[in-house]
């Protein structure tokens, strides 16, 4: 019976993963189809689905919204659609996460959870925060410019301001947020264009003109210009094939195109308001382009979509979405396909699935250690391979979507460090078959994916690369190798933690065990020592080569092999630390226990390089500043120091060595020779 367990478990998890490939349930409201439509935001083509998810993650750290009244969960896209078309409903949704007590009281927000009102003391709606938001604005004006000089309260203000800005941007996506009946407005606007532009021409060529026509067109233009300047997502696809380098537009720009186009009109406005720019040349340019052509069909279609969704006309909305998708299929096939693939990726959530399986792997590994039943270990290996397959699949899919090597930012470095650690763990397991490698794989796989999940709260995880970093060659070599260096240092550190914990609390370091199939395992002290040593060698190689390649990249891009930049220094410290462990061991300064303690400290060193250096807020590498991360970093450092403290306990206190001490072990306490396993 027991030998079927691994196969059954793998099958069960495999089926669960397979469900991710099933198409979503048919929904008459076509929300899913809408989510797949492409747009440009943050400089890249992405689906509405990604925009919605990333925005919600940034604002309230979840990618869904729960509706307490209707007792159902809204998907990110559904929430976004509501915000864009029915803001008065959306303004009641609690999508702003505010945790800082001073900020809560400044905005007069209820802090106690309340069943009847639906308050949870953490998340608030636009209607709740907007009355007090002026005071936030006032506070923001008196804030130090450098992020490092801000207090926790001020950081909370900045974060809230970021959420509010995003919230307003999103509302200007489908239409200028102040136009209620958008489709109707478009009709009157289009009718006003010819007379308005003519009046504009007459006014600036010194002829008699129709004042009403002019002021009406200028009023429209100013509103649309304001909407354009909100930096909302660009949803209107390129529609001037005759112009080379034609680009996506915001709704505001597309609206202005036939009358007083954004570029010259913006110059004109700034000239008139005295913010630089030449009024005469702006007017001349404006007269040349304005009044030509009509609104592009996409604008009208989005306007109709807005009204259809707003009035609950599901069939009409679905028809318009399908129509837009069909037009894009010919004109913007690549963008449409990419948006569709990314939506599928978002929905599949490979890293969440892998994370869940890693938990199961860890449980099975512990079962093996308690009962020494082979089925548990075999099951764990199979599941771990399954999780690795999903993890790798997600990694590769991301690479294909982005057209980039695996690591492009802090988020993807966490995913990749986890991946590297899992592979290393499985390799160790292949040789030692004592579930130690499985523990490495599952714990490190799990924790790095948790870290990645939290890093995703910062916003789009597939953001575009700054010019300096925009080279696939160096991203594929330096970044990948140095990240593997991080991964292996963590693996060594985790193995060392196992050595200390198992040694202090169990007799396993010095005892071999017979499994239920009769195989005798090596005492773990011996295996762990050799694993730590091997992995430290590996880590030295990778961290050195990775660091040096970084130097060569720096020499190529700004002429300095070594600039003592914090991130460079962090990597250098990892190299020096690994070299120190090796030399201390070769010189006989430390033995097994000492190496273990040093390797645990390697975890701190790596955490400093990975996260600590980004928190300094200086240097060319600081691409990921996060404040909550600082607290976690301190907790991590403290926990590692505690383990090292444990490792310094005298050997008599270690359960593994209690019985073994009288035996003639060399001084300093190398692991004693393996004793015959109990029969």
């Amino acid at each position, binding site marked *: 019976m027991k030998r079927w367990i691994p196969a059954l478990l793998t099958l069960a998890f495999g089926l669960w993963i397979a469900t991710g490939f099933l198409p979503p349930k048919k929904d008459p409201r076509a929300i899913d189809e809408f989510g797949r439509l492409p747009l440009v935001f943050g400089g890249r083509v992405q689906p509405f689905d990604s925009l919605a998810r990333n925005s919600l993650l940034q604002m309230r750290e979840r990618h869904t919204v729960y509706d307490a009244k209707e007792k159902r969960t809204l998907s990110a896209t559904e929430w976004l659609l509501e915000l864009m078309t029915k803001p008065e409903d959306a303004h009641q949704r609690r999508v702003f996460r505010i945790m800082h007590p001073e900020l809560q009281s400044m905005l007069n927000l209820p802090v106690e959870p309340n069943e009847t009102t639906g308050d949870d003391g953490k998340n608030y709606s636009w209607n709740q925060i907007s009355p007090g938001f002026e005071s936030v604005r006032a506070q923001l004006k008196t804030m130090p410019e450098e992020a490092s000089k801000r207090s926790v309260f001020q950081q909370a203000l900045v974060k809230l301001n970021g959420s509010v800005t995003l919230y307003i941007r999103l509302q200007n996506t489908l239409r200028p947020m102040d136009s209620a009946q958008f489709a109707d407005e478009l009709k009157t606007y289009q009718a006003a264009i010819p007379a308005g532009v003519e009046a504009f021409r007459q006014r600036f060529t010194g002829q008699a003109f129709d004042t009403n026509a002019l002021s009406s067109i200028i009023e429209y233009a100013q509103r649309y210009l304001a909407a354009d300047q909100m930096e909302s997502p660009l949803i209107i696809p390129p529609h001037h094939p005759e112009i080379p380098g034609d680009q996506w537009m915001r709704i505001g720009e597309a609206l202005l195109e036939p009358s007083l186009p954004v570029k010259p009109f913006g110059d004109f406005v700034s000239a008139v308001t005295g913010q630089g720019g030449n009024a005469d040349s702006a007017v001349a340019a404006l007269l040349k382009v304005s009044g030509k052509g009509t609104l592009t069909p996409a604008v009208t279609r989005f306007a109709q979509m807005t009204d259809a969704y707003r009035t609950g006309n599901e069939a009409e909305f679905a028809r318009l979405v399908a129509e837009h998708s069909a037009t894009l299929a010919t004109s913007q096939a690549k963008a449409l396909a990419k948006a569709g693939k990314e939506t599928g990726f978002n929905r599949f959530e490979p890293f969440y699935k892998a994370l869940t399986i890693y938990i199961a792997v860890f449980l099975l590994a512990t079962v093996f250690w308690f009962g020494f039943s082979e089925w548990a270990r075999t099951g764990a290996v199979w599941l771990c391979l399954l999780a690795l397959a999903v993890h790798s699949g997600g990694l590769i899919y991301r690479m294909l979507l982005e057209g980039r090597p695996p690591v492009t930012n802090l988020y993807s470095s966490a995913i990749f460090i986890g991946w590297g650690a899992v592979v290393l763990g499985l390799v160790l397991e292949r040789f030692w078959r004592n579930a130690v490698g499985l523990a490495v794989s599952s714990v490190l796989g799990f924790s790095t994916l948790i870290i990645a999940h939290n890093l995703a709260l910062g916003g789009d995880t597939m953001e575009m690369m700054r010019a300096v970093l925009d080279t696939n060659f160096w991203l594929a070599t330096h970044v990948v190798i140095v990240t593997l260096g991080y991964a292996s240092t963590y693996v060594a550190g985790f193995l060392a933690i196992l050595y200390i914990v198992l040694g202090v609390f169990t007799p396993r370091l010095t005892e071999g065990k017979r499994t239920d199939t009769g195989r005798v395992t090596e005492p773990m002290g011996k295996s762990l020592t050799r694993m730590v040593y091997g992995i430290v060698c590996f880590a030295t190689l990778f961290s050195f080569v990775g660091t040096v390649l970084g130097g060569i990249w720096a020499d*190529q891009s*700004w002429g300095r092999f070594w600039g*003592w930049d914090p991130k460079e220094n962090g990597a*250098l410290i990892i190299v020096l630390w690994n070299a120190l462990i090796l030399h201390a061991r070769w010189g006989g300064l430390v033995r097994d226990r000492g190496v273990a303690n040093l390797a645990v400290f390697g975890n701190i060193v790596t955490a400093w390089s990975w996260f600590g250096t980004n928190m300094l807020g200086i240097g060319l590498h600081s691409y990921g500043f996060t404040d909550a991360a600082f607290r976690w970093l301190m907790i991590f450092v403290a926990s590692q120091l505690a383990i090292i403290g444990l490792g310094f306990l005298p050997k008599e206190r270690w359960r593994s060595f209690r019985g073994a001490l009288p035996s003639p072990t060399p001084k300093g306490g190398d692991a004693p020779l393996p004793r015959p396993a109990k029969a």
Partner: protein
Amino acid sequence: MLKRIIDVVSSLKLTVVLLSLGIALVFFGTLGQVSDGLYLAQQKYFRSWFTYWHPAQVSWLILPLPGGYFLGTSLLINLITAHVSRFRFSWKKSGIWMTHFGIILLLIGQLVTDMFATESHIRLTEGQSKNYSDSSQKNELAVTILGDSGNDTVVAFPESLVKQKGELQHPSLPFRIKVKEYFVNSGAQPRGPRSGGQPQADHGVAQFFTFEPAPETFAMDDRNIPGAIVEVIGSKGSLGTWVTSLYTGDDSIAPSMARRLAKMIGPQLAERLGAELMKPQEFETDGKRFRIAYRPVRFYTPQWIELVKFTNEKYLGTDIPKDYRSRVRLQNPSTGEKRELDIYMNSPLRYNGLTYYQSSFDPFDSRVTVLQVVKNPGWLTPYAGCSLVAGGLLVQFLIHLVGFITKRRTA
């Protein structure tokens, strides 16, 4: 006795001590950058023999540290003596040998870089051509003797001399320069006809601006703008006083000053005042014309670099830079060479022992590029050193791995 010393100097214990001190130095040197800025922290921690660190607010808690020079040299000695006295070559250890020689090469290369490398920059507006680059760190008081047909001669007094506030003389100058005042850093305020008090000097830019001393800054994104008030004394007595300042001598500062002024006093007046700031300060004596300026130290080259076109692309709908590149014309009159090329991120121009990198741009003027110019005779040593170390580590790792696997197979 000697043997004991050699034993200690070449010991692994010393290696471990030096490595741990190195880790401490790099760590505190990184922390030090927060308060001291990148450049100063480098000088203080890594280009020194001994140094110390203290927390930003707690100045009595001093942690002494060996400096970068000390540790580099000690590691070098430790490594070399170890190889001379202890190591015996064997194929099993060939990887270690390679690694160690690579590290020796790296340490020596870094020393060479440190001693001979210079970094400077060129700021070019489209159409502009230069045969020199400006030092990013050092300034000088330059007197140009304006010859006919553009044949100028320059006499430059280094900042260190100006700082001492003495009298400056040079055989080719028919006058002495008396430094009356020196500012490490300064701010410039426009001076109107109704401003009270006397101008700081009776000639030149001082009629339009007052330069107020400011405290020295160490911040990363800030720079010091030094200057000096000087009196020129000829054979027949004083020829007048001038304010010489980096405000007037560095062509990247004046435009940003003009922008600041535009906000204060409106664009038209700002343009006029800006022109006064840029105007060369000149005077005549003994039948020759002289120009006096406080400016970054210049490194002259035989080749001229002309900016043909600068392009700065951003990602659509964002401010994230996507690509910036300079189309330049390289001209070398001494060889007759003349060609056009692109300098952009990760693709520098290496020419005549110098390397030109795309470094920066002017956010307010889309026609301006800033190129970094590096002269580093040791630039190839890291490549060689690193290949040796990486190769050595790989060899050693493979030797171990093969040994490990065969042992497990036979066991």
